[in-house]
Each structure stands twice: as C-alpha cells, then as structure tokens.
C-alpha cells in the first residue's frame, strides 16, 4: 500500500461558507422578485376594495356625471369577457394547428422554418401596432365600424404567437415512444395526434392558453384603436363601440375626481380577479382531466 490512500475529510469551512452564501443570495433574489408582485396586489386591493360593490359590478357609466359618485364597470366587464373569448376563439384553433404542423408534419422544410420565423416576429409586435393594423385594415380600408370584434382581432394577433409557442413546447415534450407505440398498433398519424399526442399535452396547452389570455386581457392600446369607447352597455360585440376593463381604468384614472380614481382602482381589481378566476377554472379542468384521478 505505497500509493496515497484518499482520506475521508470534513467539509472545509470555505465550502460551508460558500454554500450558506449562495443560499442567502437565492432567498434574497426570491424576496426581491416577490416585493413588486405583493406591493402591486396590496395597492390594488387596498384602493380598489372600497368601490368593489354590487353597484359597481352591475351598473354602467351611463348618465353618470363627471363629478358624480356611483356608476360601475358592468359594460367594461362584459366587453372584456366577450373580446377575450372571441380572441381565444380565433387564435386558439389557428395556434394549435400551427403548432401541430410545426411539430408533427413540418420535417425541417422551408415552410416550417419560415412559419417559425414569422411566429418569432409576431411575438415582438408591440400591442399598439396590432391595434393600428386592425384600425387601418378593418376599419379604415374595409370601412367596418368600431366593435368588440375588431378589438378581438387585434387581441388575437397578440395571442397567436404565445399560443403557438406554448403548444409547440408541450407537443415536443410528448415522448416519441408514445407516437411509435400508437403507429405500431396500426393507428394513422392524424388519429395518433388527436387521440394520443394532444391528450398527453392537454394540461400544458391549457396552461399556455391561459397565459396568453392573461396577457391580452390587460391590453389597452389595441382596444383604444378598435373597440373605441362607450359609457353604455353594449352586449353585441359585432355592432358598435364597446368598453373593456383596461380601457375603463385608463379612462377613469385620467379624470380629476376622486370618485373616478376610485372606480379605476376597483376596475383594476376586477380585472385581476377575473384573470385569477379564469386561471382557477383552467387549473380545475386540468386537475379533473389528469390521468391520476380518472374515475
């Protein structure tokens, strides 16, 4: 035994120190990241809770004078829900099919690469540009009126790349083994995608869509240019100007009276609550659909 046998040693003080130091840094980074989140939530809740009452949720701003208290955001809530729902109806199928093409069919062809490239470009389109596009094309050139539908189209442009990317990532995560297992049973490619690949990726796709919805629900600029503005309830998204919650916040916050400022806070809180409820719904759907709980 002439060779030097390694001895079992204690952890050196230096390594212990480094370990603790890095751990402290990680906690610090976490706290720094959480501070703005908590403070925003706190501010919105503290200022918004005062006016978040039944009247606010069930009344519009019709016949509310500039200095009057009261009034509500019912028309804006309806507008936001309809516009976001329509935007999802447009962008989710297109986005999902695009992702399916990119992952399952486009085998490194030129089409796949150019689609991928344009999706990346779309990700970088500023929201106001999407609004300007719909304004210029749909409203000015085609002569269509301002409407919730026009707003939904602008929002759909913003949602589309997020949906494509999220769905693409999720489809890529589905192990190839499963596709091969399905092919080996004599199942065609399309049925494999519909019955095996999509259900496996379902949870992730729903999460991705919810992120996209949350992103566009707070957009103001494109709505300003497309749904225009109104103080009245308009339930028909295809006809006439509508309102949206972000627009409502924008409008009320710009007014000089405290009553309007309070309404703006309450509307901001409402928007946050709506997005939280939508997220909760998505969580519940994925929870019920998860295989571990089946029947």
């Amino acid at each position, binding site marked *: 035994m002439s060779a030097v046998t390694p001895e079992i040693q204690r952890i050196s003080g230096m390594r212990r120190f480094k370990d603790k130091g890095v751990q402290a840094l990680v906690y610090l980074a976490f706290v720094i990241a959480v501070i703005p989140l908590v403070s925003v939530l706190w501010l919105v809740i503290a200022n918004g809770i005062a006016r978040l009452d039944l009247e606010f949720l069930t009344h519009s701003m019709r016949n509310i004078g500039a200095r009057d208290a009261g009034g509500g955001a019912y028309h804006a809530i309806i507008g936001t829900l309809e516009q976001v729902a329509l935007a999802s109806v447009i962008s989710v199928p297109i986005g999902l099919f695009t992702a399916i093409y990119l992952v399952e069919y486009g085998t*490194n062809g030129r089409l796949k690469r150019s689609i991928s490239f344009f999706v990346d470009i779309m990700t970088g389109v500023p929201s106001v540009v999407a609004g300007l596009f719909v304004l210029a094309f749909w409203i000015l050139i085609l002569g269509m009126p301002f409407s919730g539908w026009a707003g939904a189209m602008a929002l759909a442009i913003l949602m589309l790349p997020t949906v494509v990317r999220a769905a693409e990532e999720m489809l890529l995560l589905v192990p190839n083994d499963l596709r*091969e*297992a*399905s092919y080996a*049973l004599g*199942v065609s490619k399309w049925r494999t995608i519909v019955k095996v690949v999509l259900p496996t990726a379902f949870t992730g796709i729903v999460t991705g869509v919810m992120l996209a919805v949350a992103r566009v629900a707070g957009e103001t600029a494109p709505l300003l240019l497309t749904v225009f503005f109104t103080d009245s309830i308009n339930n028909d998204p295809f006809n006439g100007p509508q309102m949206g919650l972000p627009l409502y916040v924008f409008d009320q916050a710009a007014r000089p009276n405290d009553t309007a400022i309070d309404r703006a806070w309450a509307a901001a809180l409402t928007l946050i609550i709506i997005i939280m409820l939508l997220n909760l719904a998505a969580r519940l759907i994925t929870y019920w659909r998860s295989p571990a709980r*089946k*029947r």
Partner: protein
Amino acid sequence: MAKQIEVTDVDAYYGSHKAIEGINMTIDARAVTAFIGPSGCGKSTFLRTLNRMHEVIPGARVEGKIRMEDQDLYGSDVDPVSVRRTIGMVFQRPNPFPTMSIYDNVAAGLRLNHRYSKSQLDTIVEDSLKGANLWNEVKDRLTKPGSGLSGGQQQRLCIARAIAVQPQVLLMDEPCSALDPISTLAIEDLISKLKQEFTIVIVTHNMQQAARVSDKTAFFNLAAQGQPGKLIEMDDTTKIFTSPTQKATEDYITGRFG
C-alpha cells in the same frame, strides 16, 4: 392466422448512412425467431423494417423486398398503417399511454381504428389481458391508469395492447432488457405460449434468452464501426449455439467479443 415472412436483399438507410445491407432470410410462421448481435449491428433497424416502422424516422428509407405470404409489404399501393395493424410491435421500454386507463390502453388499437360495442371490447380486453398473463393482477383495477403498474406489468400491458388488435406477426425489440428476472421469466413464458398463434420475432442481447425461447436464431454483425450491419448466419437455435458455421458467430456466442 400466423404468416411467414420472406426477406430479399434488404438495405436500410438513415439519411445517407447505410445501417444494414443485403439481408436475406425467411421467418417461419408459428415460431420464435431471435436476432442476436453486438450493439449497433442493425438488429433493431431490421426489425423495424419488417412492419414499416423504420420509415417513421425522418430521412429513413428501405430498399429491397419483404413479402408476407404473397403480399409485398413495400408495394407502392400498400398502406403502411395496415401493415402495422397486421404486424404488431412491442418496444424495449414499456410505453403505456399515460392518459389512458389499463382498459383503455388495451382497447386503444381497436378503438382508434374501428367502432366496437362495449361487450365486444370487454371480451377482447379480457382475452388480451389473459393472453398476456396480466388479467389476474389487474382485473379489479381496469379503470386505473396504466402508468401505475410495475415495469414488468407495464410491459405485459404493452403486449396485451399489441395482441388485442390480433396481428399475424409480433415483433419484440428487447422486450425484457428493462425488467427484473422474474418479470423476464413471465414474459418468456408468455412468448412460448404466444407462438402457437403468432409469428414472433425477438431482438435480444441476452443469449440465454435467445437459447431458451427461440426456434431459429439469426446472428448480425458489422465489419467495423460506421459500416452497415449484415446477417452473418441464421439457423436452428440449437445449431447456432452448438456448432455455428461462422467463426464470428462462435466468437460472439462464446463471449470472445461483443
């Protein structure tokens, strides 16, 4: 329903790389044929050409002729999907569908192709699970997810899934390499039972396994790394393991290389 397969001059490529070259063989009906050989010699690739799974990989293609009885599997008007329906496959790693229950996993191949009544499905699922020696273990939890089973049970579930569509040939790509000896034994017993109904081809790295379960054995080898794999010798299993005609086969079997 088992059928014999006739292979003539088959080459398989991945892009420009030739993975196997000049394979000729006859795979007997109602018998077990084992493929042995060192890693990378093209056994699995060749196995996958038999049910047209090779071409699923982008850039992969096959040349040569493979006939099942009187049908050319690579004929220009042959639907690869129907080839795979006739020639089933079990993979190295158990791969039950994670979103489906045990019952749905077995019924998957049937449901995804045709409409069956509930009672028809029930019968086929029960028969297939019995055929795969799994029925007694899972009959009380058919609605639970298949991913909750042990590795050996999952592999038998995959075999049940493969035989549920009533193929004529069953290809197995190292079906026991991820399993413990007890599960391996269960699957080997199963193979001996299945050969009464199916033509079975099995790729294995385990020579005892080849000797135990197979009737015919084919030895594959490659001249050097990067060269295409070739069929060196194929004969009755007892002959291959006792008096092979090729030196390379003997070296491999006795453990002198590979």
